[in-house]
């Protein structure tokens, strides 16, 4: 399969195979006005299989969300057809308004304008806890 290289934009590479669609969902890219290539199950020397996303003309994606969803992915920023920046991702210590608390007893279920804040609890298991009710969410399986 051949996908043309892009002049300007970003390439999210080495996405764990099978998680690319979640990343696309969370990034909430305006696909009506931007060209997006999403490749699933591509061959990878490093991981065997990987997903890959190319987004033309967009360079300011939310790296916190990306790190949360797949810290093994890499982000290449492209300008004039060249890679100008390579970004390695990591699990963010705190995420705001990305994960919604599902505990029906949590105050975020009733308080208007309350931000949903989660803190990293265990980097190995990708578990995050809600700032308000301490409910635990496992981002590996989400």
């Amino acid at each position, binding site marked *: 399969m051949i996908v043309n290289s892009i002049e300007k934009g970003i390439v999210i590479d080495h996405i764990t195979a099978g998680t690319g669609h979640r990343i696309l969902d969370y990034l909430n890219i305006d696909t009506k006005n931007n060209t997006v290539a999403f490749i699933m199950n591509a061959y990878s020397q490093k991981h065997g299989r990987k997903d890959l996303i190319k987004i033309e003309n967009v360079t300011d994606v939310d790296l916190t969300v990306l790190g949360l969803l797949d810290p093994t992915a890499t982000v290449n920023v492209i300008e004039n057809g060249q890679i100008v920046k390579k970004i390695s991702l990591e699990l963010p210590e705190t995420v705001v308004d990305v994960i919604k608390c599902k*505990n029906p*007893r*949590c*105050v*975020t*279920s*009733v*308080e*208007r*304008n*309350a931000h949903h804040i989660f803190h990293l*609890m*265990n980097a190995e298991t990708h*578990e995050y*806890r*809600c*700032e*308000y*009710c*301490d*409910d*635990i969410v496992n981002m590996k399986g989400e």
Partner: protein
Amino acid sequence: MLKGRSILEPMDMTVAELEGIFDLADAIIDDPEKFAHACDGKLLATLFYEPSTRTRFSFEAAMLRLGGKVIGFSEPNSSSVAKGESIADTIRTIACYADIAVMRHPKEGAPRIAANNTDMPVINAGDGGHMHPTQTLTDLLTIRRRKGGFTNLKIGLCGDLKFGRTVHSLIKAMSRYEGVEFIMISPEELRVPEYVRKGVLEANNIPYREVKKMKEVMPELDVLYMTRVQRERFFNEEDYIRLKDRYILDLEKIENAKEDLMILHPLPRVNEIAVEVDNDPRALYFEQAKNGMFVRMALIMKLLGIEVQ
């Protein structure tokens, strides 16, 4: 320094700060008159979005005995909350009038929303099934006055450990002391939540066992902390009825317990401790309730930065 800070969970206080609160509480118990005007001119707001007798009265009594005054509501329908006001707006308004606020709320984390929206100290007086740090101060003061400290204790926790906020707070607070071990006695459905098991017990390598029967572990215990199965936390009445009478402590069950066992209960009890146990010298839950007022007096003084020479 505790001055100006909010207390939302037990870990908001260091071990040294806890000792300072208990030392002050002991001083107040020894000579309450000395502190009768410590909070003259200060105002405590009590924001109770959920019914409470003990906690609200003990906070109000604490402030009044320090010479301060109290404003507040004891059920949300009598306040602007009934008009749909957010917690953030309510606390901003209250902060215009009061020096310190106490909040009880059925939703978990509600006092944190309040604390995040004001510079006034906010005390969590119980948020849903989550935390109840001032009950823990009460529990710890009672243990300290009887046992002299908190190390090398085997603590039995019995009943509703899932929704029992006093249990979650107590486990968190005790996890910082050497040689503490927990035996958790509950039906499977009411075991401690994951954030307590993983986030506190396992994260700190605290030894614990989960058992279903009370009597077999009784001889080992230094403290037995009984709790009520809380009807208001269940979405399903059938589950409540099925579980509510699972553990009833009576004299026969403590026959083989240690002579210096401490039987504690955050109260109110329904029927989980038979009345016949009340006269046993090991039953300390009313002493615990009394300590609650003194330790809250100490906490209010610390958060307001008031010292009495």
